[in-house]
């Protein structure tokens, strides 16, 4: 073999940095953390918080574990995001991460106060008391700047890949190995919406559903091999493409799979539980057999018709821009009022839309509820 092609080989063997642990990724949803090589699938209908949950997990993965003596609870990992739905907003992610740090800072402050009064403080917030005191002695402006630069630092370990068509999507997935070598130490791969191009693929690439599965099987065999080889945790969101009825009809017509009535009955039962979520795998058996955690998300209607606490939470963009009347640039950083507002918002959980996440892993089912807040997702205790 000649000399030039040995570069990727050596890259694969020698220079590969083992990825960071993601045990802290989400103690509520994934107690014990995802193990390297595991695949987490987020499914659900439109507007049920798939991308939000994915973004929350990205933020956790990017943030450091501790910062200036305060426990942030992140993983400090290198994340690769393949964005096919084009719904990702970096400004939103930045905003969320900043809010999250500010919240931790506030918790740290409270814990310090408690400690001063001789009460039992929450141990897990404070890692190094001296460091926090030093930080709190500096003025507000410099703390703010430090937070901004910390977020920027974290964003350095995010690699963003935007796929704008089906071919690009397929080739990007097939060349994951090359990306993994280029971006050393990736520990989390997020694909926002596997299903972004499935209809296009179905119509223009595959003549039938079975062919489409073959097509996806081909792609995911490569992807999964790469995930295993580089010990990456993969999170993928997947939209629901069709209702049960339509899908079943089509399935019967096109593939003529012999489904005996018993099996079909089971299928119906399973589906009724999930309100039209089709359990049959569109992406082929390679994908479904590698999924270790399947999380089904749904929007809970109106949990409690609680009172609404004022106008405490406005959108960040309006905060940034409410004085400008014409087209204006979005500036990062947020305003001072955010801190106060977030304080209020901690009390207003009951006013928010609740989302449910049903996790299926190792044949165990758990159901969790969460609300989406400015700084990310907050799990609700039952």
């Amino acid at each position, binding site marked *: 073999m000649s000399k030039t092609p040995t570069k990727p080989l050596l890259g694969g063997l020698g220079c590969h940095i083992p990825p960071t642990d993601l045990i802290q990724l989400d103690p509520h949803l994934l107690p014990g953390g995802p193990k390297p090589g595991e695949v987490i699938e987020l499914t659900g*209908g*439109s507007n049920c918080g798939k991308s939000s949950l994915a973004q929350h997990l990205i933020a956790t993965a990017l943030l450091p574990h501790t910062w200036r003596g305060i426990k942030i609870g992140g993983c400090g990992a290198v994340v690769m995001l393949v964005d096919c739905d084009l719904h990702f907003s970096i400004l939103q*992610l930045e905003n969320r991460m900043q809010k999250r740090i500010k919240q931790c800072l506030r918790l740290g402050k409270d814990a310090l106060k408690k400690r001063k009064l001789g009460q039992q403080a929450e141990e897990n917030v404070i890692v190094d008391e001296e460091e926090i005191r030093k930080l709190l002695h500096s003025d507000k402006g410099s703390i703010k700047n430090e937070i901004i630069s910390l977020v920027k630092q974290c964003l350095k370990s995010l690699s963003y*890949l935007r796929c704008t068509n089906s071919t690009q999507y397929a*080739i990007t997935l097939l060349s994951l190995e090359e990306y993994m070598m280029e971006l050393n130490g990736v520990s989390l791969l997020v694909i926002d919406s596997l299903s972004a191009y499935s209809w296009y693929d179905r*119509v223009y690439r595959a003549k039938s559903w079975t062919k489409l599965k073959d097509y996806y099987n081909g792609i995911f065999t490569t992807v999964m091999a790469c995930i295993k080889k580089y010990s990456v945790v993969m999170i993928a969101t997947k939209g629901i493409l069709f209702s049960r009825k339509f899908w079943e009809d089509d399935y019967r017509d096109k593939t003529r799979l012999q489904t005996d009535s018993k099996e079909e009955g089971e299928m119906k039962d399973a589906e009724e539980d999930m309100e039209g979520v089709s359990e049959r795998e569109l992406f082929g058996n390679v994908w479904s057999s590698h999924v270790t955690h399947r999380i089904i998300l749904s929007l809970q209607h109106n949990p409690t018709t609680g009172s609404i606490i004022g106008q405490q939470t406005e959108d960040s*963009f309006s905060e940034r821009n409410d004085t400008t009347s*014409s087209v*204006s640039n979005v500036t990062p950083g947020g305003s001072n009022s955010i801190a106060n507002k977030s304080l209020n918002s901690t009390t207003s959980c009951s006013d928010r839309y609740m989302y449910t996440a049903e996790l299926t892993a190792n044949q165990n089912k758990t159901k969790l509820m969460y609300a989406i807040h400015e700084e990310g997702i907050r799990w609700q205790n039952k």
Partner: protein
Amino acid sequence: MRLTAGMCPALTQDVIEKLKECNIKNILDFMKTDPEALAMKASISYRDLCSIRRVIIAHSAAFVVRGEDLLKEAITATKVIPTGTAELDRVLGGGVLTGEVVELCGGWGVGKSSLCVTLATHAALHLGLSVLYIDPLNSISALRFTPVIEKLSEDAGTVEEALSRIKVESPADVWGLLKALDLVKQPYLSFGRFNTGGCNRFNSNNPSGKIKLVILDSLASILTPLFIGSTKQELGMINQLAAALKSLACEQEVAILVVNNVVQADYGKRRKRNDMYDEWKPALGRFWESVPHTRLFIQRLPNSIRQHTKELPTSHAQNMQDSMTINISVWKSTRLKQTVSMKAQNPEVNISLF
């Protein structure tokens, strides 16, 4: 995508023939195969295969952007386009954001097009933006603009100059639509309609020819003809169009406003008793449902229905004479979700149109 000779110096006709023997006909087949195994099977040098692979990746795969650079780019490029109505701006969190696809949906004759005309005029006149107004129904006319313009206090010259910044396209089908969207990619657009000497002078002083706002009136009317064929064909088309719209929005940093109808069909899904939005659903099916970043639902308020329920509920002429009040609520948003509490998550505004 086919493998063609000359894509890469290593990819000669000879190599293509050898690959064909191994059942590799297109780029995807090639990318799926492990180069080491292929090198042995097809007796092509591993080095060549790797360089072909690299060329394909460079050409077709996504480009890696560091989060930090992405943020820098977003800060400089993202703009908020206010809608001109304070209440709507509040609901949208400042206005329409570039890089986003916003959907306006509502029944027939509730004022979707009127709202679009108002937005286009506001953007062109007060913000000095170039607007692409795609109108497949050919429903836009001078008459439609008249009531909006009449309310303005600006002098005729300014208004005319502003209107010249609104480019109206009326594509006949989806392909026409895709072609019309290509206009957005042009760095500068010369507008033919009011191309007087004065206008040219102005434009050269203020080269704001790049389109920043695209309004696509009645998407459903353009896609409905496809329903006649197979549903799958149509869904494939929707998928393609959705990808085209969204990539256009983020690559060219434009805001796209799409008008959609609402239907009562529930896509075969068993309806639940307490469905959140009664029976109305956006048209174009389940796949399209998740495409826009933000979805606004428009309803006409009862008091204004009284004015219009004579014989012609959708009559444009009537809409123009008396102002009407519409109610706008947010159905879906990727941006507003986590920041807004329940009351404000489904915020509603009532605004008056002319």
